[in-house]
């Protein structure tokens, strides 16, 4: 317990320094929210293996490392910059280095009708009232201790505010880049998306880190989808092999609002996604899907929670995992249907493909239904490559390694096909092509 107290002391000293440095620029309401979030952290502490939500995920790398705040003024190396998947994105790209927006690296078209884009810090200085209803409230105490730490410590971030009725054609790309000198450092990546009534937007958040950096990315994305609006969010996580990645996505949906999230977790030694979706009014629709591909001794963990608090809402969830080597996958999906949330239609599925004998997966789909007129289904499958299919391909002359690559690709391909942003789909294709043998022309492999 002494170690835990020590951890807290380290964070407390850090928080005192942070408060002193930002006291002048933060609005009062934000200071209060930071203090409350930090107090929740102090009360709960960092997770331990005894916490139900972390039972299957080795927390030690997250809790034992001493992570100093990453330098937001760091100059990313050329390699780190090259790793950011920018090719083909024609819309606005916001680049955040260690949590801080770099205007130099970002490309912000001068005329962006219908959307306010930029630095969270800037918005807080100029028009704090636009962030006040949401920042630190969408991701509230319920979303866990890492989100609380982010709320307490995030000094900047990306903000996307879509005007009511605006339909954005080009996807907005928020690129989070961890750049360091190799020392363990934490960056707090923060994104706030508010889609006004009847608006539509697409958002890509990418996460990359420079090579050998033992970085910790603590990311929080808050999404507000107002009545009848649509937000389609994509996340591509390709951090380095020794990086740690903990991300929280919190979304709130208004009446008849639609929200979709597509999460692709390919990098990091440990990656954890906490997703929290709430229907605040009737008629909402939410579709979550995700693909993680892990090998070596890496760990990918997705915890999702969808709360049906209102009637006539529907949710769809499909998470797929490809686990090779001694890697581990964790899925925990909770769907809560509150009393009165009648006509809820919820479907949840988790499918895992184990490519080696030592690969491991923990899958826990959960339904908690407190209404009586609902349609809810969930399921989970874990298996290996189909031996019959493998032989079928080989019997046609395709080599064993290529056949395995092709079948692995086939397992993942329905999620890749769903990616409606072409440059992203190509980036994902390139990534999988590099990791799976024999997938020469992915586009052609798609039926």
């Amino acid at each position, binding site marked *: 317990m002494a170690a835990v107290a020590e951890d807290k002391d380290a964070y407390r000293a850090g928080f005192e320094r942070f408060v002193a440095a930002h006291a002048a620029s933060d609005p009062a309401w934000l200071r209060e929210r930071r203090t409350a979030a930090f107090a929740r952290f102090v009360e709960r502490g960092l997770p331990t293996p005894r916490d139900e939500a972390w039972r299957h995920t080795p927390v030690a790398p997250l809790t034992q490392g001493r992570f100093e705040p990453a330098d937001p003024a760091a100059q990313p190396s050329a390699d780190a910059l090259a790793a950011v998947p920018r090719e083909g994105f024609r819309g606005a790209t916001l680049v955040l280095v260690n949590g801080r927006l770099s205007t130099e690296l970002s490309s912000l078209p001068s005329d962006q009708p219908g959307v306010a884009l930029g630095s969270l810090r800037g918005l807080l200085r100029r028009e704090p009232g636009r962030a006040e209803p949401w920042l630190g409230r969408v991701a509230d105490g319920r979303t866990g201790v890492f989100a609380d730490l982010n709320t307490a410590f995030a000094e900047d971030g990306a903000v996307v505010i879509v005007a009511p009725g605006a339909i954005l054609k080009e996807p907005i790309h928020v690129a989070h880049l961890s750049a360091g000198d190799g020392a363990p450092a934490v960056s707090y990546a923060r994104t706030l998306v508010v889609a006004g009534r009847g608006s539509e937007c697409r958002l890509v958040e990418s996460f990359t880190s420079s090579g050998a950096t033992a970085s910790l990315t603590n990311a929080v994305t808050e999404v507000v989808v107002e009545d009848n609006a649509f937000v389609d969010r994509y996340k591509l996580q390709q951090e380095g092999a020794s990086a740690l990645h903990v991300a929280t996505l919190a979304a709130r949906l208004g009446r008849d609002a639609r929200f979709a999230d597509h999460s692709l977790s390919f990098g990091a030694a440990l990656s954890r996604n906490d997703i929290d979706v709430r229907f605040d009014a009737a008629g909402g629709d939410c579709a979550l899907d995700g693909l993680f591909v892990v090998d070596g001794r890496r760990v990918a963990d997705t915890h999702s929670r969808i709360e049906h608090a209102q009637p006539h809402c529907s949710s769809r969830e499909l998470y797929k995992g490809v686990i090779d080597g001694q890697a581990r996958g964790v899925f925990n999906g909770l769907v809560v249907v509150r009393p009165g949330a009648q006509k809820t239609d919820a479907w949840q599925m988790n499918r895992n493909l184990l490519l080696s004998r030592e690969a491991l997966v923990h899958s826990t789909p959960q339904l908690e239904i407190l209404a009586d007129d609902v349609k809810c289904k969930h399921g989970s499958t874990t298996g290996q490559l189909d031996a019959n299919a493998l*032989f079928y*391909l080989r019997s*046609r002359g395709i080599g064993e390694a290529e056949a395995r690559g*092709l*079948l692995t690709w086939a397992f993942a391909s329905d999620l890749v096909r769903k990616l409606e942003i072409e440059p992203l789909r190509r980036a994902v294709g390139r990534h999988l092509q590099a990791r799976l043998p024999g997938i020469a022309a992915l586009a052609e492999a798609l039926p």
Partner: protein
Amino acid sequence: MLEIKNLHAKAGENDILRGLDLTVRAGEVHAIMGPNGSGKSTLAHVLAGRPGYTVTDGEVIYKGRDLLALAPEERAREGVFLAFQYPVEIAGVSNVYFLKAATNAIRKHRGLPELDALEFLALVKERAKVVELDDELVKRAVNEGFSGGEKKRNEIFQMAVLEPALAVLDETDSGLDIDALRIVAGGVNRLRGPERAMIVVTHYQRLLNYIVPDFVHVLVDGRIVRSGGKEMALELEERGYSWLEKEPAAAPAAGR
């Protein structure tokens, strides 16, 4: 082309083939008939190299080489093709992509240049006609959502594209209605040629009205107990197999 000598094989733990001899020359079509459990499908699978089967004795010489020493993909590249009794559905991989990967693997093995997308599509279009396979099915995921007949036609279509030297057809007729059977058999007949040999495994004599074999062999308890010409199939249809099961194994007539 193919010489099977004293082949003994197990499927899992069970002895299935117990001393099978068969010689197939280029240009010949051999029908293998026999009751359920006699080892017909085991023979087909052993020739294609399916995992789960163990050869315990005997040998298989294909084009002068030890076929059993080759991996399944190597056999395919050397010209062996198995038309599956139960073709496998592979969601997420299109028929065209799958066949192109296979074609180019085989071409590469033979020192031929790989076909580009245009050349390959032209080939596919032409060969799809052999079994009247719809363009739309060619583009769909491998066998996914295909009817039983469409799956079998897809097997023969693949054979038409891959142009094997030795084709083994494992109960390609079972479960087909008469129209589908005609199409499948028509496709097979168009692929007959002096350089190509076929082993047609079937449970029903009916297929042999459409694919007329040069030789008919009866497999009982893992051995060929009788061989003859195409007329023997009719006799089998009339009399069944039970009279053969009681007879001692006749000396197998290999080839002619």
